[in-house]
């Protein structure tokens, strides 16, 4: 009796550490495998083969390239959003243009992009840029405006230079919004990328899926989708979560009762 309790406690602690959602996902996978085996499907062919073939074809590398292209949109959206938020809505009418163009679905740009660039990398880059730009801009704009009343008065009363205000106040102070904008922008870009690749590209994951469809290679289609999901997830998990933990994680307390004094 006495030596069983610690085991149970450790088990429960481990459970809490792993988390119920993760367990459910793992269980779901196990069940899927079970069904696959039970119905005598070729597990190896379904998973390793498709994934390996996809990797061997350099699809992974090709998929990462447009992810870098997506960064262009983020890189524009962030500073323009911050500047417009700081200097007010009237600045050059940029904000008005953005808000009018925002409701246009990114996919609706495809005909124009096809005429301008023709199918290929430039077209994809432009599409991804547009997709990533809106949410990043919106969040950067909002985050900066939220700050303007609270902290800018203090900074101005301390005589802060414009550079100090931007570097030390606007960027770190707006970081919760900016990070959110980057996440949303990245997510939008990633989703759009695959769609755009299907229609405009000669390479890339989306194109790979499209080609597989014409060959009726369902396993390749599914493998492509899994790779898309995994890549997106990995960037979320290992880029954005890390950045957030390293910054906001130390600025804000996560649990109550940690108050000092």
């Amino acid at each position: 009796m006495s030596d069983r309790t610690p085991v149970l406690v450790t088990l429960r602690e481990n459970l809490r550490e792993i988390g119920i959602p993760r367990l459910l996902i793992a269980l779901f996978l196990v069940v899927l495998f079970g069904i696959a085996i039970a119905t005598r499907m070729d597990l190896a062919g379904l998973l390793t083969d498709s994934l390996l073939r996809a990797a061997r074809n350099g699809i992974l590398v090709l998929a990462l390239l447009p992810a870098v292209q997506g960064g262009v949109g983020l890189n524009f959206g962030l500073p323009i959003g911050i500047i417009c938020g700081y200097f007010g809505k009237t600045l050059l009418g940029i904000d008005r243009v953005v808000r009018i163009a925002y409701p246009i679905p990114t996919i609706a740009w495809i005909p124009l992009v096809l005429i301008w660039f023709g199918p290929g990398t430039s077209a994809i880059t432009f599409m991804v840029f547009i997709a990533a730009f809106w949410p990043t801009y919106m969040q950067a704009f909002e985050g900066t405006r939220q700050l303007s009343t609270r902290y800018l008065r203090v900074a101005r009363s301390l005589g802060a230079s414009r550079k100090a205000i931007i570097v030390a106040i606007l960027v770190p102070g707006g970081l919760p919004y900016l990070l959110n904008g980057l996440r949303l922008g990245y997510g939008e870009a990633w989703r759009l990328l695959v769609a755009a690749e299907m229609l405009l590209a000669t390479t890339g994951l989306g194109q790979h899926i499209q080609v597989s469809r014409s060959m009726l290679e369902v396993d390749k289609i599914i493998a492509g989708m899994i790779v898309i999901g995994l890549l997106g997830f990995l960037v979320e998990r290992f880029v954005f979560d890390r950045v957030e933990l390293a910054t906001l994680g130390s600025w804000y307390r996560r649990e109550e009762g940690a108050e000092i004094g």
Partner: protein
Amino acid sequence: MDERGSTGFIAIHNVSKVFATADDGGLKAIDDVRLSIAEGEFVCLLGPSGCGKSTLLNLVAGFEEPTTGTLSCAGRPVVAPGPDRGVVFQEHTLFEWMTVRDNVIFGLTCNGPMRSRFPDAGQRAQACIDLVGLRGFENTYPNFLSGGMKQRAAIARSLAPDPAILLMDEPFGALDAQTRYIMQNELLKIWQATRKTILFVTHSIEEAVFLADRIVVMTRRPARIKEIVKLTTPRPRDINDAACSAIKSRLYASMASESVMS
């Protein structure tokens, strides 16, 4: 002393402030205020909530421009916010992404003239942190501090560039009674140690009686100066002794007649 004139360390000369409103009528927040504050003086602006006393403080800080009239601090007209006037607000406005030390240092490193004035910003910041009793919390982020400690840090930050004037907008309004009492005592100590000129906005009669050299009673909107009460009781004061009680009763009567009109 010229109590209502245009000379003085802080000189508020016939200042009015009208805010634009949707119905074009305009909202008159301050009406023809004349006030002169001597160097090193501790003045409380006392008035009912929303009467415009914070607006007056914002005008002195340079956050807003008067509709008519002029303001000057240390002989220079007020045109914009500046490091010669430190500001402490009610809600904590500490930069949450900086430690206490970085918050205090910010004012010393955020522009060129200040950097050359305080070449050793770290030492200056430490002196201010020590002054407000936050030694040991230099590397703490604001969200891990209690309400009172946040305001201590905010005071340290406003003191760091060594302003001649400290403008305080209900700095202890959000604190519990006991912490507020401790902070009022601390502020008096800091004031006596640094001899800053302090303009302190409050709606608490007790707080004003405990702290001020002079209490400027404001009417409800538009804010005018109703009366100016001079306090000569030596500090530390017992706000329940005979002299203070008499002033309190007078202020209560004065404030009550302002509330009735609302």
